């Protein structure tokens, strides 16, 4: 990618500085502070505590369990999520937008109610209290990440290459394996990183389904920090966690294949040959729907058998205490939903600001070695929050942000900031592969024609990536809506969010409180589907506009115009060259 502009402009420096500042204040500094309290309790370095915790046989077992759980869940999510990505983002059928939104429901459901639903579902089977129950639940929660992240990238892949391969006699599976899969590489790796990090740091589901027998690094950090106040031990494990995450990100960076230019594709009608994939994804969909259906059923089930709307009606109330009618909650679930929406809107806004800004910045070429290292470091650092314990971060906020002008410990500002820390990496993983695929020649051409940097950004990158951007915003909003760990730590009772209220209902004795929690969880799912549905519809508009331009793309057999990259393609020339020419034509 030699000749295009790679100068470091003041804008890019300012953008990079703002990102580092956000990450520094709301992540790196608090985490460093709390780890420092463990490593250097009295100001002088003391690694004895860390050595002690790392030397325990229990620690080794826990690290092994965490790794195994995350690896198996990640592999399963990738295998089970791919068919869904194809069906939902490559095929065109009625109700597609609705199914896309529904597919993300498991991802936002509160772990406590799903955990109890799973536990009841598994009772009496060999899965009851077993390690595999945890893995299954992790797959349930995270398979949507693969479907969506990979799907969004798949949607942007120019289908003409596959079509050409088919013309040349390649079968569907061989085309998938040799043409499509390599091009999906960056998105697949991105999705796998996210699922791995989520699975490795899972908390509630591990406790509820494993009965605390199967500690993970995350549950152990929680135990050591919030129950024993063993900060050296927790710091040791936090360092282990960080080393893990950095290693995973490094390996993923090595595995990332070259960037790929993309073309929005509105999907094709299903064909007869699609049935194995369609059947596979349907099976996955049904399996995912079982626990959700159980949850919906439980929200309508009356205590004496039969059906009732009482639990739903109770959502305007405060829950009932043990036999006395006293309130369990500080705010009603409906008010909590309002809080959730407000926090999630703010959180998603910050996440998009950070995520989109970072994606644009990271997708631009850099000339120097130093610059590219800095860029790689920033890219990795932005992913770190996914791999660090919410407990570590929460306690870090307590000890770091405790003096003016940053005494934010009891400020509501921290809630959306913490949510954005979790959502931004998903935004980046969704947008970065897409923006990296934007042909740098387009930017150069725009600049040559006199467009300023803002204009280039607006009329080249943002225009080309508008659908993924809208989709990423929907995803960010959903993540913020469902975020529990950090939000529970930071939100106050009078501004509790719906997941926090659900957890509280489920953990307090009182008639009907669990059923009310189930109804509230279904409500959360409905709101999420509605939000994602709106994002789908908003994304469909630009989709239509781009499709109308499609006829400008040369037909598969038409001789293509000469490409700005210098390749003149002729019928029968290598597939890639022909496709490249087609893309260049379309984009100009």
């Amino acid at each position, binding site marked *: 990618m030699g000749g295009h502009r790679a100068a470091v402009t003041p804008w890019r420096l300012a953008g990079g500085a*703002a990102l580092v500042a956000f990450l520094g204040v709301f992540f790196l500094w608090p985490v460093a502070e709390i780890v420092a309290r463990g490593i250097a309790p009295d100001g002088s370095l003391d690694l004895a505590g860390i050595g002690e915790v790392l030397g325990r046989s229990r620690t080794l077992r826990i690290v092994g369990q965490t790794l195994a759980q995350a690896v198996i869940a990640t592999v399963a999510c990738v295998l089970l999520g791919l068919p869904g990505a194809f069906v939902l983002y490559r095929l065109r059928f009625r109700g597609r937008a609705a199914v896309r939104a529904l597919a993300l429901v498991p991802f936002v459901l509160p772990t406590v109610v799903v955990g*109890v639903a799973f536990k009841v579902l598994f009772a009496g089977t060999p899965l009851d209290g077993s390690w595999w129950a945890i893995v299954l639940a992790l797959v349930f929660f995270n398979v949507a990440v693969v479907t969506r992240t990979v799907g969004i990238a798949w949607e942007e892949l120019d289908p003409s290459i596959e079509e050409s391969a088919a013309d040349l006699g390649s079968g569907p599976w061989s085309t998938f394996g040799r043409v499509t899969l390599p091009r999906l590489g960056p998105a697949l790796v991105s999705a796998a990183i996210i699922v791995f990090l989520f699975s490795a740091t899972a908390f509630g589901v591990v406790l509820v389904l494993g*009965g605390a027998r199967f500690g993970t690094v995350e549950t152990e950090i929680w135990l050591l920090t919030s129950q024993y106040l063993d900060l050296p031990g927790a710091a040791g494990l936090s360092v282990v966690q960080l080393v893990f995450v950095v290693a995973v990100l490094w390996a993923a960076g090595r595995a990332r294949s070259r960037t790929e230019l993309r073309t929005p594709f509105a999907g094709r009608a299903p064909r007869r040959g699609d049935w194995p994939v369609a059947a596979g994804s349907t099976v996955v969909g049904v399996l995912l729907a079982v626990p959700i259906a159980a949850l919906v059923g439980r929200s309508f089930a009356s205590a004496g058998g039969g059906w009732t709307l009482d639990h739903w009606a109770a959502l305007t109330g405060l829950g009932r205490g*043990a*036999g006395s009618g006293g309130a369990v909650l500080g705010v009603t679930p409906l008010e909590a939903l309002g809080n959730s929406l407000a926090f999630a809107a*703010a959180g998603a806004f910050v996440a998009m600001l950070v995520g989109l800004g970072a994606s644009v910045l990271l997708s631009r070429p850099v000339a120097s070695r130093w610059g590219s290292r800095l860029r790689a470091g920033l890219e990795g650092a932005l992913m770190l929050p996914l791999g660090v314990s919410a407990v570590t971060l929460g306690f870090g906020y307590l000890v770091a942000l405790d003096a003016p002008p940053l005494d934010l410990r009891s400020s509501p500002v921290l809630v959306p900031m913490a949510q954005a820390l979790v959502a931004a990496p998903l935004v980046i993983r969704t947008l970065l592969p897409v923006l990296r695929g934007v042909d740098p020649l387009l930017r150069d051409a725009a600049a040559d024609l006199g467009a300023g940097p803002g204009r280039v950004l607006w009329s080249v990158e943002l225009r080309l990536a508008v659908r993924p951007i809208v989709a990423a915003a929907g995803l960010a909003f959903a993540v913020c809506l469902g975020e529990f760990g950090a939000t529970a730590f930071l939100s106050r*009772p009078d501004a509790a969010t719906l997941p926090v209220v659900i957890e509280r209902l489920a953990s307090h*004795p009182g*008639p009907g409180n669990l059923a009310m929690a189930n109804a509230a969880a279904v409500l959360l799912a409905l709101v999420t589907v509605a939000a994602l549905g709106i994002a789908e519809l908003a994304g469909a508009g630009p989709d239509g506009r781009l499709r109308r331009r499609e006829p400008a793309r040369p037909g598969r057999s038409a001789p293509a115009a000469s490409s700005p990259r210098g390749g003149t393609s002729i019928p029968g020339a290598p597939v890639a060259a022909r496709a490249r020419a087609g893309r260049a034509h379309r984009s100009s």
Partner: protein
Amino acid sequence: MGNAVRPFRPAAALAAGAVVVALAGCAQGVPPAPGGTGAGPSDAAPASLTLVTHDSFALSDGILEQFTAETGIAVEVVALGDAGELVNKLVLTKDSPLGDVAFGIDNTFSSRVDGIVNDLTAIDSGDVCVNVDHEAYAAAGMEEPRTLADLIEPAYKDQLVVEGAGTSSPGLAFLLATIDEYGEDGWQDYWRALVANGVQVDAGWTDAYYATFSGPSSEGTRPLVVSYATSPAAEVVDASAEPPTGYLEDTCFRQTEYAGVVAGTEHEAEAAQLVEFLLSPAVQADIPGSMYMYPIVEGTPLPETWAAAQAAPAAPRELDPAEIDANRERWIEEWAAIAQP
């Protein structure tokens, strides 16, 4: 991607971060936090006190407002997690306290806040007891267990579910009950016998009670669960009928909750006033309904349904707080080695 951890410069980040925070605060439309304390317009009395407490803290509407009406001091409540988290956060922030008054430090943690929270005053108490599903035993035609010793009888094999002592406060209370009964050298053998008798260990109260216990509002199959003495009252639907569940008196362990003045507060006198207010009849009478705890002041009326279920345990077990704090971690570790191998 590669080397993601870079040297970090707090000063630079602080400066840049201040800008980000300011921008973010404006952009989001989130109202700024109400100040924890602030001087009143005319006199020296503070406009507000901050009460830090645990997640289970609740008082009916209007109760704290009553305090404000009487004294002119507004109270802001900040919950800091469960009882253990509350204590540890108080310890961590002792140089820059999060509030003026702390409520909800229980006897299993109270010795940890020496010098951090002063003038600890008992406000309420509750009991953790093994709950029993009366209907299940009646249906099976079996006699219910009565004592801790009964729970290791073969007749009650695979019938008890408890919470983990490391992950749950009722779980820890039950472990302490067995230590009180069998002593420092005997409780390990008792737990080995419990494990041999098929005790199930769940992580937390929610999953143990709702997913494993067999009571009317639960979906599990085990008729014995470690829960609270007040839980049977929550299962009473018809106050005139026999309560469907109850608790085993011999298994009860008492948790006492304290309030105190956070060391370093600028409003010590006012904070003491608030602690005193928590002992007033208005608050004490509200505690059972709002927090499922027994008021500490004798003679405070209790809700009717509580009486319909079962009276409070007469002589629950207790341990010396200092002994608990000195041994907690070792006990839990030994317990985990036996109960969660």
